[in-house]
């Protein structure tokens, strides 16, 4: 049961490794970027789930003395990290477009072949 109770860590680890596998194993640059996004999304989940307090509500001050709040800070942090992730993906996609224009391919092995010539 203890293992199941930690299921959000399992989601984090599996998602992280799935993304990492795609980054390492796929030759298509576009698929690599998808893997990278998964890889980052896993870390976002790690942060977001850690902030949840059992029985906690949204951290809005209501006057009740015994109110339990979830920690809002990790969500704020991850909001900025999501922005970073989007910028990285956007820049990566931009580079893929330029690579396609210059090389006519987005397969890593074909690009290496062209450069070797």
């Amino acid at each position, binding site marked *: 049961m203890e293992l199941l109770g930690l299921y959000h860590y399992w989601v984090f680890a599996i998602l992280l490794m799935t993304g990492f596998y795609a980054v390492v194993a796929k030759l298509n640059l576009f698929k690599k970027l998808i893997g990278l996004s998964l890889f*980052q999304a896993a870390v976002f989940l790690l942060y977001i789930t850690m902030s949840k307090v059992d029985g906690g509500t949204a951290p809005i001050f209501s006057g009740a003395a015994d109110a339990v709040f979830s920690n809002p800070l*990790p969500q704020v942090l991850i909001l900025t*990290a999501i922005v970073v992730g989007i910028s990285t993906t956007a820049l990566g996609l931009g580079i893929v477009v330029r690579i396609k224009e*210059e090389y006519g391919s987005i397969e890593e092995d074909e690009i*290496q072949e062209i450069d070797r010539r």
Partner: protein
Amino acid sequence: MSGLGQHLPALQVVVPMLVAPMVVLLRPRGLAWAASTAASVLAFVIAIELTLQVLGAGPVGYLMGSWPAPYGIELRVDALSALLLLVVTGASTVALVGGRQSLDAQIEADRQPYFFAAWLLALAGLSGILVAADAFNIFEFMEISSLASYVLIAGGPDRRALPSVFKYLIMGTIGATFYLIGVGLIYMMTGTLNLADMELRIHAVGDLTPILAAAGFITVGLALKAAIFPLHVWLPNAYTYAPHMATAFLAACSTKVSLYVLLRFDFFVFQGNLEGHDLQFAIYLMPLAVLGILVGSAVAMFERNIKRLLAFSSVAQIGYMMLGASLVSIAGLTAGILHIFNHALAKGTLFLAVASFAMVAAGLRLNELSGIARRMPWTFGAFVVAGLSLIGIPGTAGFVSKWYLIMAVMELGPAGVPLVAVILISSLMAVVYIWRIVEVACFAKTEEQGSSAIAVSPLMIVVTWLAALANIYFGLAPALPLTLSGDAAAELLRHLP
């Protein structure tokens, strides 16, 4: 200035960051360059002023919006960050002041404002990492500087920059994400992001396993960004195909700033908290440092493109810095940090000279550089001076840090002898690869080429020589970097018995 004086740590980041979007609007030719150069010079002046304050009165702290430290965001400049601030802003300023002609040749006029904006953002990001005193701001600034450097590297005319920068982007993002995981794990256990507060609160953590995992994630992630062997594979191509001036700027400082974060975490945060951390750090990183030194130098000996050659030499030099750090002693860390400064001087000068060669020579392969010494004797003179500094000839800056490194290694006793041998062998290999360039440049038969009509601007030559003379100056009078790196090492290792 008296009112603004107390805001210097914030201004260090704010100035380039605010000028960056304005530069995009400066369409008329040369204005974008002038504005970025002015911002960079101002940043350099701020860095000098901060260094003087640190030397005079110890670390400079700054509370953003006057919120007290663990709750608000704190900026902090100590000896280590001051030394690196000098390197970062100095490299940017030198490359911008001297580099106009080279940049004009490589970047089309209508793209220049964007390029300079990215340059200033990279400068702001790198300075931000150095002044930030909390883990998450370091991450944010790391990503700002990385994204901006991807743009800088991809900005040149060589299409091979694109696949290299893609690789850099993938590996850099993985490194940063690993760092983020580590910070998340620490936050889970301590509930704080401020480095000083974090260090104290880890004392109270009962189960140290997550902290240990965090130390692993952070060290590996930053090792990727700092291009520590064998995680350096993104570096050679990225440096080789980037615009020459961007290479001069980034080669002098970007990996070193990641190294700074690595040192800060491993020594400042983890050292006093994890039992046996110093030993783990040494066992894990010393072999990598030695391999990096040997493999980097060996590959450089056989490399045919001069920029790739110097890039592989950088991999070896990062090995020296890591070797110093992995000794986990005051002397070793002093030598490692000193080498950060001295290597930036030498490599920055070399890449500046290479940028000048590129304007005149047909290409940057060694055989295309034949006779370059006769066609541009002044620039080549500066190249040789910096090359000697890279090798570590007495009288140059490179000698000072290698001397201190050897002294630190000798403290190990008999176990240090193989390490001294490694340093000497690698220095000999540096003699070989620098000599190969000198040989081709001075003694090979010149093929007459028609492309020599362009003359390198006098400003460029003056700047290159100033950088070369700095190598000699800090070789003869190393007091300033030595004091700073000594203070930095003492502060990082304050837990050592």
